[in-house]
């Protein structure tokens, strides 16, 4: 994913490619590529990112449509979760007798 790109004037748009490697798993970002339209983006993604059967499903989205969080703001963005350790099971002490919980 890119920011502040000085796009060439005749360049095909940039697309981000997400691939599901097998049924039951999430789509995962694989990389990006250029294509004139969505259909070509899928076909190019097949050729570029699944030459060895790496995928059973492909998503493509034009890079300009992705909104990303700002790493410079990470501290305040994730602050709400920062002090809530009681959201983790390890926060709770159980008596020894309780074997499985």
């Amino acid at each position, binding site marked *: 994913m890119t*920011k502040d*790109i*000085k796009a060439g004037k005749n360049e*095909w748009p940039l697309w981000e490619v997400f691939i599901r490697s097998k049924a039951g798993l999430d789509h995962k970002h694989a990389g990006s590529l250029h294509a004139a*339209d969505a259909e070509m983006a899928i076909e190019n993604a097949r*050729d*570029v990112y699944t*030459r*060895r059967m790496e995928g059973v499903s492909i998503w493509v989205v034009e890079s300009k449509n992705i909104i990303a969080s700002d790493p410079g703001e990470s501290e305040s963005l994730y602050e709400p979760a920062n002090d809530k350790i009681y959201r983790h099971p390890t926060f709770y002490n159980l008596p020894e007798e309780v074997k499985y919980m």
Partner: protein
Amino acid sequence: MTVPTFQEHFDSLIDREVTIEPKDWMPDDYRKTLIRQISQHAHSEIIGMLPEGNWITRAPTLRRKAVLLAKVQDEAGHGLYLYSAAETLGVSRDELYEQLHSGKAKYSSIFNYPTTSWADIGAIGWLVDGAAIMNQVPLCRTSYGPYARAMVRVCKEESFHQRQGFEIMLTLAKGTEVQKKMAQDAFNRWWWPSLMMFGPPDAESPNTAQSVRWRIKRLTNDELRQKFIDVTVEQAKVLGLDMPDKDIKWNEERGHYDSGPINWEEFKNVVKGNGPCNKQRLDTRKKAWAEGEWVRDAAMAHADKRKARQQAAKAA
């Protein structure tokens, strides 16, 4: 509490082996060096298709032809992974192509040597891809995320390239006298340029220290070259071929093979543009790009038209 500067924060990420991602702050020199290194690598993959493409129509069997096609297609793919990694640093694909076509950007000098016999396809896979793997494996842990992820993909695919080359060499080396001679001749011609692929000696590589610090280089040129020599000598024994370097000798004390001097004048000359095929390679590339222009434009025009038609249908 003092607030760390951007530079201090970046340095601490590097020190803690944390990956740098596209939207993170990074020093200008880091960005520039990465763009140069990644795009040079991408260009090498793209130009690297040409010497081998030369033999696709003349591969000796259908199996060899299918394999060579798949290998060349992989190289196109590797070029694309790397170009898109470079683009995350804020440079456009068109700019990168422009730098290649104008000669401003370099690609690996090895591809400026001709492929004069079928055995060269074996030698390239075995030696050139072997040297490339040596260079690339440490880069899977490089500090810049998109680059490291691209290298993981490249390395996964590259080992088939080296094996298919070795298989060609083995078949020729175990074949008729003429075939064995072909294999030895290809080995002789590709050996020295392959050693040059690791770049100038450490003493003449002033940027190495900074690149190692940034983790965009993990081993020095000479360290990688020595590793390559050590493994290749053993592989040549399996092939029953003679090392093209008569000074190759095991050094018990160092635990490495000693080797003869490399002709760095030749290397500099090829990098400068005076190798046997520099002009031919770049001309071929520029011609392909220029002749494809109408296809790229037509595809874009078609996509725009279709989008407009869909929008009109929606509005109606």
